[in-house]
Every structure is written in structure tokens, then in C-alpha cells.
């Protein structure tokens, strides 16, 4: 399996605070990789460094897009990183609230379409074809996440779980090879989490995408991940298969406190 994302010694300082301390991580083709850790461990900061929202202080973030040249993406703008093929969702949902569900997904197609101002004004054959394609692809994605019936609804009128799924559909619209999900199950009830679980696996299997996710819901993580990385206080303390992580004393200590040992 070829490696898609390779992070080596990633470090992020905020003033005197080292939020992420030389963390390494790898995502291979077709994998679901989870990044877990207690609150404040630096998981989201790690995500923001990888997706270009922050410029990391040190280390390398390398992407190996399938069939393309390897690129070091430290300090590139988020939109450039998305264009290389890594799309993300947000921990606190960031949809476009006053746009319709369909339009939200259509925004994801922006970086894969080319109509310019003149083309948009003249609305020639190519523009119309592109627009039709955008609508069709977006609608298919909505069907995939089960939101097709709500296509004309405003995004802020959706229930919480549906908003999370819409964010995933929007990220998928950018044709990524790697999907980064920041706590996709946060705030969901067990039923919704279960559905999400199935959705993520289906996306991986059907969409030929790899997935890197941050999650607190242990059941979901253990169920679907191929490999797990654990962070605490900005450092990586463990990595391995779910089975290995479950029995790793360091992880148990990080999650349950030292009393377990005593």
C-alpha cells in the first residue's frame, strides 16, 4: 500500500507553548487512521497544521498524491492544500448557513471547475456543461450521505447530525484522496454515530478515499480504524492497531489517570 500522507517531526509553537511536539504520522492508501487523545492533546492543532490553517514551526508534511509528484505542503495556503487533494471537516461545524444544502456541496466543486468571470457572464456551452456537471455530482454526493431530499433546504435548518454529514459531503466534493474528519461524531446520539460509522466505511470502500479522523467516541474509533495514533500533551505516546492500543498501558494511563497502575 502506498503512503499518501507522511508527517515527520511536526512541531507547532504558540509563543512559549509547544502545542504539538515532533509528531509523526502516516496514512496509506485505503486506510482509516484515527488520531485520539485526551482534550487539549493537540489533535486539532495537528490537523490545522496539516491542512494549512497554521504554518507549522518545524517538521515536514509530505503528500504523495496517487500518480503525482510528492509535495512538501508546510506553509501552503489551505486552498492550495485542498486542491492537491486533502479535504477536511471542522470540529465546530462550519457550513455556509444561509446557502442551500446543494449549494454548500457545490462550493466544494469550486476548485475543480474553471469558469471565469467572462465565461460566467456569457454562459456558453462549456460553462453550462460544467454547471450541469457540478449540480449532478453534488446531488450524487448528497444521495450518498442521505441528504438528497433536503437539497433545497437552508443549511442552518438541518438537524445537527445532518449538518455533520453535509460537511462530509462538501469535503468529498473537492475530489480528495484523503479525507480529514475532525470529530465527526461529536454531539451525535448513539443511533447517529452508528450510521456515521457505516457511512465512513462506505466512503472508504466506494469512494477510493483514505480517511484520517480525530474522534473521542472510542466505540467508533475501535470499530472502524485500521490504525490508531494517540497523543497526549502534544506528544505522540502510542501507535498501532486498535487491539494494541486497547492494551497499551501508556494509553490507559493517559485516559484513566495513574490510579490504574497503582
Amino acid at each position, binding site marked *: 500500500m502506498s503512503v499518501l500522507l507522511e508527517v515527520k517531526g511536526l512541531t507547532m509553537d504558540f509563543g512559549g507553548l509547544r502545542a504539538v511536539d515532533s509528531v509523526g504520522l502516516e496514512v496509506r492508501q485505503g486506510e482509516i487512521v484515527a488520531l485520539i487523545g485526551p482534550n487539549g492533546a493537540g489533535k486539532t492543532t495537528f490537523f490545522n497544521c496539516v491542512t494549512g490553517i497554521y504554518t507549522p514551526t518545524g517538521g515536514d508534511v509530505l503528500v504523495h498524491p496517487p500518480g503525482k509528484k510528492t509535495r512538501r505542503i508546510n506553509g501552503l495556503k489551505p*486552498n492550495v492544500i485542498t486542491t492537491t487533494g486533502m479535504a477536511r471537516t471542522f470540529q465546530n461545524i462550519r*457550513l455556509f448557513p444561509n446557502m442551500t444544502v446543494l449549494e454548500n456541496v457545490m462550493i466544494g466543486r*469550486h476548485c*475543480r471547475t474553471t469558469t471565469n468571470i467572462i465565461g460566467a457572464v456569457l454562459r456558453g456551452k462549456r460553462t453550462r456543461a460544467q454547471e450541469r456537471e457540478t449540480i449532478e455530482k453534488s446531488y450524487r454526493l448528497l444521495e450518498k450521505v442521505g441528504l438528497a431530499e433536503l437539497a433545497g433546504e437552508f443549511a442552518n435548518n438541518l438537524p445537527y447530525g445532518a449538518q455533520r454529514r453535509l460537511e462530509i459531503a462538501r469535503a468529498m*466534493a473537492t475530489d480528495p484522496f484523503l479525507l480529514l474528519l475532525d470529530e465527526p461524531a461529536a454531539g451525535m446520539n448513539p443511533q447517529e454515530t452508528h450510521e456515521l460509522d457505516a457511512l465512513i466505511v462506505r466512503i472508504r470502500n466506494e469512494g477510493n478515499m483514505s480517511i484520517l479522523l480525530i474522534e473521542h467516541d472510542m466505540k467508533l474509533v475501535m470499530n472502524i480504524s485500521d490504525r490508531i495514533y494517540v497523543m497526549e500533551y502534544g506528544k505522540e505516546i502510542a501507535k498501532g492497531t486498535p487491539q494494541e492500543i486497547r492494551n497499551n498501558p501508556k494509553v490507559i494511563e493517559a485516559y484513566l489517570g495513574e490510579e490504574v497502575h497503582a
Partner: protein
Amino acid sequence: MQSFKKSVFVALWFMFLTFPLLVVRVNTLKGEVEWRWMNMLWVGIVFFILSYVWRAALERKGQKKANNLDEDGEEILGFRQRLFQDPVIYRKVIAAVLIAAVIFPFVFSSYQINIMVLALIFVVLGLGLNITVGLAGLLDLGYVAFFGIGAYSYALLNTLYGWNFWFCLPIGGLVGALFGVLLGFPILRLRGDYLAIVTLGFGSIAKIVFENWDGLFKGASGIANIERPGFFGLEMSLEQSTIYTYFLMVLMVIFTVFVVNRLKDSRIGRAWMALREDEIACVAMGIDMARTKLSAYAFGAFWAGLAGVIFSARNTYINPNSFTFMESAIVLSIVVLGGMGSIIGVIIAALALILMPEYLRAFADYRMLAFGGIMVLMMIFRPQGLISDVRRKYDLSALQKKKEAKT
């Protein structure tokens, strides 16, 4: 009953507040204090009525919101919404408006045509600013600067080099757009209050430059003898020229509506709207923020430049006083009153705001008072503007059918 009681309290409170000003008067000549109790009574009555009406209106607004949802929880479309969504109705309305626009100059005097031309110029300005403020959500308090830049570029090119109107029209627009980009660069990272201050400053700088650069812009005395728009060198009387400018402006408005409408429903318009909704999400979805912001500024400024060229050609004389903050404020009010992002709303608001003061000259003294009052009332009762932005409906029936066929 509740609102009655509250209104009584409000009235009493105002009677108390205005007591020292309206009731007590110290007559220094006679050395005695006059008590004008009647004033107190009037204050009480007037504020009671105002408060009561106010409360009733707010209550009705609340009820309306509740009633607007039918059993399915879907909003029932009001008449206005239906007007813009039912093609049969709106085609008829558009036809009627066009016919009225064609007949207009042959019925009314050239004074009225002139006012109408001015109003149409503000329609174009409003539609232009609507791109920056309404669609892309970038506040611009110095919009009039681009209008001025367009106007001065035609004035200078015409008086110095004798370039004609038609040649200068696109140049004016492009110069406006260029300055839009120039303003855009330094403020790419700014948001909210800071953006407001910088754009306000830009507007003021433009006016000060026009006023004080005597060598180029002729300072406060302005530039005179600017050529009117020509028609293949045809000689025209003043009245004919006015009518000609009017039709030119009508075409200009149609052109603007056409272009803005197409852009709004395109990939670029969607990117602008996404930028307005959430910048970080927008960037994370692969939209180049710098490019999108700059294009919104440039495109908004482009229309201001075009409008500026027509403005100086219509007036044949311009000076810096036509490009004060007041004009920026009016254009911004047009956008806010009309409804952010709504093309029809902006057109109606522009016509209302420019034509009303002209036809209500008798009340000129109260103009700003009424203006402020209307703004406050609008923000409370219809914060989304006269006509809220009608969203495009995408035709999904074909896609839905395909799915059914598959299953």
C-alpha cells in the same frame, strides 16, 4: 392590557425626562419661573400613543412569524416572493416596467427625465455595491471613491485629449476596477470594524485628492465643459440629448442586471456568497480567498466607474462635492434597504431613495430625519431588506428521476 400598562409607564417616564426642558422655564427678565403644565400633558399623550402603536406593531410582527409556517413547517410564500418566483407573473411585470420606461421620457418634462437619469445612475451604483457588500459580505464605506475615479477619468480624458464618451466608458470602468484591486490588497486580512474604517478612509482620501490636486483635477472648482454622450456625431438639442442619456442609462441598468444576475448564479457568485458566510470554511474548500475578495472589490468598483463616466457626461461639470461620504452612505443604504444580495430590492430602493427627496422638496428640511427614521424602522421590522434575496432553484427533477430508474 399588558401593553397598555407599559405604554402608560413609558409616557410617565418621558413626562419626567422632558420635565426640566419642556415644563420649567425660568424667565430671567421678570425673575420668575413659568410652569407649562400643558406641555407635560402633550408629551404624555403623544408618547403614550407612540408607545402603544409601537408595541402593537412588534406584536403583530411576532404573530406573523408564527403564522407563516404551515403544517409541514414550510414557509408560505408571501405575495412578493411569488411575484419573483412565478415566471408568468414576473414576465408580465418586467414587460410593464419596460413599456413604462420607454414611454416615460415622452410624457414627462426634461427636468424629470434628468432626475430619473440620476436615479438610474444610483441603481447601477447600488447593484455594483451589492456585489461587494450584499454577495461577498465585504463592507465598503468608500464606494463613492470609485464613482469619482470613473467620473474624473472621463472628465480628464475628454477635456485634455478629446477622447469621446463611448471610448471612455469601458476605460472608466476598468480604472475603477483597478483601484478596487488596489484598495483590496491592503485589506485582504481585515474584517468587520477595521474594514469599515479603512474603506471609509479610502473614500475620504479620494475626495481630498480630487480637492487638493489643483494641477490635475482643478481642485474645488472642478472640471467643466465635459462632452455629453454622442451618437455617431449626430447633432442633438439639449432636450434630445437628455432623452438620449436617459435611454442610455436604461440600457446600462438592463446590462448591469443581466451581468450581475448571471454572475450571481455562477461558480464565482457562489464563491462570493461562501466567502460572506464563512471565510475559513471557504478557504478549506479550496477557494482562493485573495482572488475571490479582490474580484468582488474589482467588480463592484467596475460598475461605479461606469456610472461615474455617465454621471460626468450627464452633468458636463463635476467637482469633488459630488463624491462625499454622503453619497457612499446613500448607496450603502440603498443596498441595505433593498435587501442584501437582492437585485430587484436594490433597484426599488435606489429609485425610492433618489426620487422621493426630489419630489418631496417641500419637506427638504426633514429629509435626514425621515431618512434616519426609515432606516431604524427597517432594521427593526425588516432587517433582511425590502425584498429578501430570492435563491435560485436548481432543477433537480431530472436527477431524481434517474435515481428512481436505477432503483
